[in-house]
């Protein structure tokens, strides 16, 4: 059809991205959900804080950080967020079901720290 076009996935080089424009994590990355307890509206459930997870997917497009939005600050607060996988046994050490059972949750980049493997 369009024989003379450049194939997709062949971007130009030398382009510098703005701070925060590109997601920091990618699928397969190991991370820890931070165990912070700030004051305000935070949508990271307490039972997930401090748990190890594996990034499964970058959710596109990046979205307004609802934690900032709760204070009426929308401009410039777009954040990347990720669907992460956590084994049930990581959350509940006494979990009785099969080891493959797990949980998935969306976490903003500001709540994840990289774990070297």
């Amino acid at each position: 059809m369009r024989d003379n076009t450049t194939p997709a996935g062949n971007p130009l080089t030398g382009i510098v991205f703005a701070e925060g424009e590109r997601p920091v994590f990618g699928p397969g990355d190991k991370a820890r959900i931070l165990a912070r307890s700030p004051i305000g509206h935070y949508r990271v459930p307490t039972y997930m804080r401090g748990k190890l997870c594996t990034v499964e997917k970058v959710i596109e497009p990046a979205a307004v950080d609802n934690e900032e939005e709760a204070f009426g600050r929308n401009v410039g607060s777009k954040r990347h967020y990720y669907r992460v996988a956590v084994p049930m046994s990581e959350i509940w050490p006494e979990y009785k079901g099969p080891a493959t059972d797990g949980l998935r949750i969306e976490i903003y980049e500001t709540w994840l720290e990289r774990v070297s493997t």
Partner: protein
Amino acid sequence: MSAHDHSSPHSEPAAPQHGGDYEIMETAVRELLVEKKLIGPGEIRRQIEVLDSRSPALGAKVVARAWNDPGFKVRLLENGRRACEELGISFYDDTQLIVLENTATVHNLVVCTLCSCYPRPVLGLPPDWYKVKPYRARAVSEPRKVLEEFGTHIPDDVEIRVSDSTALVRFLVLPMRPEGTEGYTEEQLAALVTRDAMIGVVTANTPTESA
């Protein structure tokens, strides 16, 4: 919320108490907003109409289309919101939709531990049991037991994946297509898809169950 603490997922929620604190607060805030001309009664009515037009029947049509149209299914799993928009379902609340496919090896279950996030554009309002604390707490800590209480037995060699919706993403479970439905029309298929199957607490009905 404390009135709901002792409820199990199956028990009927306590009847709404007329004149309760939340109802009085809602009326007060609504009247203030209208009085200050920040919103008008027409806008409130319109939003109620939007919500009323969304029900599990829409989700059932989405599932039936995915079962009968492999191309649509690929698009639905790739980007749930965009595929639903193809069918004219708008996302008035600006949420994204991830569609989770149940297979012979994976069973998905949806919960919102923080409140009651739910794919309202496709399913309408959530059932009462979805909003009470026992379901919200137990779905993430003992999902197999919760499923058993719904009459759903998931064998140990099938992985349970619980998705906790917390922010901007909503989840819809794509149940497995029941056996014996070859040649069914979309309408016949949609009749087998219940709200609870799209939350993941049960499987889709078989032709004999719904006969």
